[in-house]
């Protein structure tokens, strides 16, 4: 029987009322910052590609390392963080029936703190006082204000974490015996990771501030790097978790199917949360001061993240096949044709998923000790993260935009905009294949990353890299076109698209699905397990680095 209007409003107000306008404003503000930084970061990316290819010479007031630092910081940190916060807060509001007023305040406080922090950090980069690259670990030293800016960014993230935790607790208390909606569950997981990830980098930055001010003479470089990668690698998995939240929850609905299995999805989330922080060590596999046997044990920990990844791959393709067959797909691969390839909301995340197969394979190369020796600090690594972050994560984010932004702005996705989105996705994919592909190959040939000039006086080995570097520039040009289209699409959908209602495409479980068990909600336990795994991974090397510390390094400025 049809529900009466009154009942629907009472039980599921979002169906009729849409997202709370106050919550939509929070998310839209974060998304605005995200896409402004995407535009600036994208332009800097092209500048860098052209300089590297030797096609332009930067003016004397702007150097390659400055551009590289700003590009990394704006895209890897600011764009991804603000996008995921905007997106996840919208999810939380949608799933839990609106944010609590105090939680909204937390989100605004976080927003302001992050803006202040980013402004401080970027100012220092522009003044050429902080060309320390986005990894900002010692011994390269930036101006203290750069680090203080980073502290503000972290405080902003913590404010957002606090908001999510409060809203989650509030819902739990009022819904005994029920599992939290999947979207809220993902949000909780991502912010748990944000919180524990940023602890490492906060400790690092607090040791760097007095060091860069000259109050202490030296700092322990190895500890700094280790704490940075505690954060850095977890950030990777934060993006990954945000991306798979869209794959699991929204993509099935967009193709007209159901989601795979509530229990499996939650298990994947728990595994990612518990296992991922120690993965940071594979970024340091060439570092001295970590013994061989410790590195060997860490290979297990790093590769363990492949388990939830493979579970995800299996589940997603099962959903595709099931849905394709339901829509009339025949034969071994006939179901592939039934998928809505002309819908940008599907195409973008689908290409993202496919690219993750290659990204994941490259990741295994990076994690393996012997293979890492070949590619360490070469352009291969740059190619790797442009395919993982730049395609798997970012294309998913772009795909999300095409329903999230019209929904939040109470507008519609027009067929024209959909077509533009398809064009954007294709340009982006081609650009990235050219750029990332050539980076991978030239990395294997030995071209170093993070180096402004790699002609080495015209040495013949270095000369062999030049054609590939030209290809970087070609790819980067296409990518900038992609960025411009995307930013145009986002702001068009935010302010100019025709008014109307857009669906929030949340997939339902299968009719005969068993509900997720309550033990998945035991966040206290998952956090203790996370801490135990972190302790297993970090106590030995960090104690060793501190007790057997070398004299330490003074601040070094190479630019």
């Amino acid at each position: 029987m049809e529900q009466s209007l009154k009942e629907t409003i009472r039980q599921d107000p979002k169906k009729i009322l849409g997202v709370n306008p106050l919550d939509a404003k929070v998310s839209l503000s974060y998304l605005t910052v995200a896409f402004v930084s995407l535009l600036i970061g994208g332009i800097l990316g092209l500048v860098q590609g052209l300089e590297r290819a030797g096609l332009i010479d930067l003016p004397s007031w702007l150097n390659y390392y400055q551009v590289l630092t700003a590009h990394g910081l704006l895209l890897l940190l600011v764009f991804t963080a603000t996008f995921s916060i905007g997106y996840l807060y919208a999810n939380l509001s949608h799933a839990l029936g609106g944010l609590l007023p105090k939680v909204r305040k937390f989100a605004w406080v976080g927003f302001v703190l992050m803006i202040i922090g980013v402004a401080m950090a970027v100012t220092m980069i522009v003044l050429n006082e902080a060309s320390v690259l986005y990894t900002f670990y010692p011994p390269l030293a930036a101006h203290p204000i750069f680090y203080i800016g980073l502290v503000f960014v972290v405080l902003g993230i913590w404010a957002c974490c606090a908001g999510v935790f409060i809203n989650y607790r509030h819902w739990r208390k009022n819904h005994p015996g029920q599992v939290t909606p999947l979207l809220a569950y993902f949000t909780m997981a991502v912010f748990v990771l944000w919180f524990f990830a940023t602890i490492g980098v906060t400790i690092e930055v607090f040791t760097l501030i007095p060091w860069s001010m000259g109050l202490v003479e030296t700092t322990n470089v190895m500890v700094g790097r280790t704490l940075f990668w505690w954060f850095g690698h977890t950030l990777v998995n934060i993006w990954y978790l945000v991306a798979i939240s869209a794959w699991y929850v929204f993509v099935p609905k967009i193709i007209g199917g159901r989601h795979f299995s509530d229990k499996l999805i939650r298990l994947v989330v728990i595994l990612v949360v518990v296992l991922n922080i120690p993965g940071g060590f594979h970024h340091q596999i060439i570092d001295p001061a970590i013994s061989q046997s410790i590195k060997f044990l860490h290979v297990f920990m790093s590769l363990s993240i492949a388990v939830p990844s493979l579970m995800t791959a299996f589940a997603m393709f099962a959903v595709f096949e099931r849905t394709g067959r339901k829509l009339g797909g025949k034969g071994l691969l006939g179901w592939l044709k039934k998928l809505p390839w002309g819908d940008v909301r599907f195409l973008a995340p689908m290409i993202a998923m496919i690219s993750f197969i290659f990204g994941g394979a490259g990741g295994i190369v990076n994690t393996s000790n012997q293979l890492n020796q070949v590619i360490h600090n070469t352009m291969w690594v740059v190619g790797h993260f442009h395919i993982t972050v730049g395609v798997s994560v970012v294309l998913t984010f772009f795909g999300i935009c095409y329903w999230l932004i019209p929904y939040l702005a109470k507008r519609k996705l027009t067929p024209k905009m959909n077509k533009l989105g398809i064009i954007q996705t294709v340009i982006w994919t081609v650009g990235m294949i050219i750029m990332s592909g050539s980076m991978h190959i030239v990395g294997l040939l030995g071209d170093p990353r993070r180096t402004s000039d790699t002609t080495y006086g015209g040495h013949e080995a270095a000369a062999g890299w030049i054609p590939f570097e030209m290809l970087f520039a070609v790819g980067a040009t296409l990518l900038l076109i992609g960025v411009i289209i995307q930013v145009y699409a986002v702001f068009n959908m935010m302010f100019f698209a025709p008014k109307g209602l857009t669906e929030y495409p949340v997939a339902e479980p299968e009719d005969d699905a068993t509900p997720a068990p309550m033990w998945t909600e035991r966040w206290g336990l998952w956090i203790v397990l996370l801490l135990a795994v972190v302790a297993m991974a970090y106590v030995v090397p960090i104690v060793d680095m501190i007790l057997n510390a070398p004299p330490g390094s003074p601040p070094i400025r190479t630019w």
Partner: protein
Amino acid sequence: MKLAKYGLVLYLFLALPPVANLLESIMIVHMHMQMPLLIASGFLMGRFFQLKFPRFFEKWNSNGVPGIILFIIVWSYWMIPRAMDEAITIQAVEIFKFISLPLLAGVPLRDSWKKLASVGKDITFVYFILMFLIMGWIYIGSESQVCNNYLLVEQKTVGFGSLAIAACIIIYLLQLIFIDQSEFDEVQKD
């Protein structure tokens, strides 16, 4: 029973000489990874023994207290530096380690934990928190080697590791106290 088989596989894996050698080569891994994993293998295999000898467990461990005391004694014994040293140097002690930890600690833990009243569980938690804190203090503070086979720096590492474990148990206990556990009970949907 599937879990019991996994337990056996884990046990056999841990007993492989290269695995045992690798794990025992690092002090903290020996104490805080190999030993707990041996207990875990016994814990998983426990089901097999419970089904095979139900009367034995009923008769000797009806309220879980004897079992948990055995568990505490056996695990505490293996925290003694000399016990670890001997496990490395004397083959018979190594064999005893591979028998005692799964069978005299893991299996009784499996059988006892569900039978224990909450006060028994609390006492167990508090005991281990205190044990790890004191161990941390001794191992970090000691100026001389307590194990012949391991360096001073490894000993300090074990100390910090013990403190980390104590901290994890404390956090776990706090969330048990402050979060209403009935929230997690399954409710039948009508």
